[in-house]
């Protein structure tokens, strides 16, 4: 690829901005570059990142999803209650179960978006509120804490790729859950770029009517994107609580904003038809890094939301300017 073409790709731009930000944060506080900080930063990418892959797919198809944190918590909590009730001791089946619950809930979104032809934002606002209300109103509100959490889930999520003890005796490890994130990223990338259904997602986001006329299956594609987002959310919900050893059904409320911000930051267009897995991963990294580095940069964490908001506005302003320039 020529240098000019490479520069024009939004991934390159995000990557350069990311590098610049890292150098900047490192200058303010060199502790940023400590291995322990880098490892914990990578760890913080996992949950937001996997969910962002689902939102990216929905957004490429021209939709939006704000219901997935609620789905994640519902899938996680129902699965955990079942595990505690029967005393189940495996790992694979619970993750499969959480994924399937998320997938089923995603199908609910797809049904309303496709069959009722309602704006995705309104639909997912409704399903999200409904599912979280159902979870907290009918299933339970109490937190499952570390002594009740299934041991095998904690052990599973505790695995490290590499770990060592520093001179002052603290333990530093790079979590193996990163592999799950990378695996999902690869799968979604291949699905989007190298399969028929991926082509359909892009085509639908570009022009729904044109996609229909050239023979793409619009209902199937709609179900695919929302079910994928739901399934990824369900899986991530269980992974999240396994990693923090604490299952609170109130958790992750408001997380949809961060994830959408990350996906938009990664160059995806909310009008659909544009976006990439690599860009999204860079966007997630950027957002997580800024959020986590406020403390390192001696900024009060109450500023976190303001910073995220400004990033969203800046990123969307730039993408809208880019989209208009391309259209012209």
């Amino acid at each position, binding site marked *: 690829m020529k240098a000019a073409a490479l520069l024009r790709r939004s991934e390159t731009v995000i990557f350069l901005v990311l590098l610049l930000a890292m150098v900047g944060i490192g200058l303010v506080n060199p502790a940023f570059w400590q291995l322990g900080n880098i490892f914990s930063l990578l760890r913080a990418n996992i949950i937001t990142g996997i969910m962002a892959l689902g939102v990216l797919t929905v957004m490429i198809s021209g939709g*939006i999803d704000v219901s997935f944190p609620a789905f994640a918590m519902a899938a996680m909590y129902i699965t955990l209650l079942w595990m505690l009730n029967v005393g189940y001791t495996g790992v694979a089946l619970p993750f499969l179960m959480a994924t399937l619950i998320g997938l089923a809930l995603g199908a609910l979104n797809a049904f*309303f978006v496709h069959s*009722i*032809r*309602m*704006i995705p*934002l*309104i*639909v997912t*606002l*409704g*399903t*999200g*509120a*409904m*599912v*979280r*209300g*159902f*979870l*907290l*109103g*009918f299933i339970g*509100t109490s937190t499952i804490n570390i002594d009740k959490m299934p041991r095998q889930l904690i052990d599973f999520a505790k695995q490290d790729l590499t770990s060592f003890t520093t001179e002052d005796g603290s333990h530093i490890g790079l979590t193996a859950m990163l592999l799950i994130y990378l695996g999902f990223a690869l799968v979604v990338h291949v699905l989007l770029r190298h399969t028929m259904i991926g082509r359909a997602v892009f085509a639908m986001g570009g022009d729904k009517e044109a996609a229909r006329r050239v023979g793409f299956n619009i209902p199937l594609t709609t179900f695919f994107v929302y079910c994928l987002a739901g399934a990824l959310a369900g899986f991530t919900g269980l992974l999240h609580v396994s990693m923090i050893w604490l299952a609170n059904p109130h958790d992750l409320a408001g997380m949809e*904003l961060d994830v*959408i*911000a990350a996906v*938009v930051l990664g160059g995806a267009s*909310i*009008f659909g038809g544009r976006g990439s897995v690599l860009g999204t991963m860079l966007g997630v990294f950027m957002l997580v890094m800024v959020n986590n580095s406020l403390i390192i940069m001696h900024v*009060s964490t*109450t*500023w*976190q*939301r*303001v*910073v*995220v*908001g*400004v*990033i*969203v*506005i800046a990123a*969307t*302003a730039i993408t*809208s*300017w880019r989209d*208009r320039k391309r259209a012209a």
Partner: protein
Amino acid sequence: MRHGFDLRRFVNREANLVQLLGLTAAIFVLMALLNEKFLRAYNFESITYIAPELGLLSVAMMLAMLTGGIDLSVIGIANLSGILAGLFFHSMGAPRGAALTGMPFGMVAAGVLIAVGTGLLAGIINGALIARVKITPILATIGTGQVYVGLALVLTGGPAIVGFPDWWDAIGNGKLFGVALPLVLFVVILAVVALVLTRTPLGVNLFLIGSNAKAATFAGIRMGRAIFLSYVATGLLASVAGILLSGRTNAAKSDYGTSYLLQAVLIAVLGGTNPAGGRATVLGVAIALVALMFLSSGFQLMRFSNFLVDFIWGAFLLVVIAINALRNRAR
């Protein structure tokens, strides 16, 4: 109506409104049958104080939806307005005591100006981002919403600002000619919005933009200006809601009323607003507000948990969407 009231013509023309009135009456009867406390005067009186703040947010949502947009920052604007006014009172008077509660009328009026000014500025920012920078309303207001809520957090550090002057509380709890002051304010604002929407070029343009943006452009309508003004109005309405909320509860906090967002969307959609743009009536939103308030006060009397109520709102929104879709298809 000039030729007297023709019921049949009204029913034909306003089928949506008639169905909505029927739904409201049905909810009323159901709730009255389910709890004997529902029909007590106190219940309706408390509705007249609580409904206006949610009503203003719903009208704001309706205005944004009219052009096919949405405003997800309204709650942030409302809370930030209340908080800024509260901080002004605390710094000019005192955080508590007679110096705060007995603050003179003029000072409180200045506080109202600060709150409304906040809404105006927030609306201008939203409008500029959407109409000038051409960011999609969803993303623009997600972003600005984070900034407004974030600023509220930074200013308060998290906890609520408690304690407002008596005059300020009077806006949220007072009476005018025996009617709740918030209700009076709400009805006046509703009338102004209805007049602007139906009797001014701006209102007509907003409807045109919502139903067919391309045709509106070719018709020479200055789309950017009309959309900009609609978001300015949305910000103003949200800040008045913030005044009513902080006046009624005597407190302001960065995360008050977060469940209002879903309810405002629900009321706007139930009231016959098309979220894709082009269709909205102030009267419909007002009736939908009454229906929802009957429902929620009934649930409260039956001691439903807030979570259960959220579940019902979400489900209700989906059912309303489905019914609207089926009805449109039948036509």
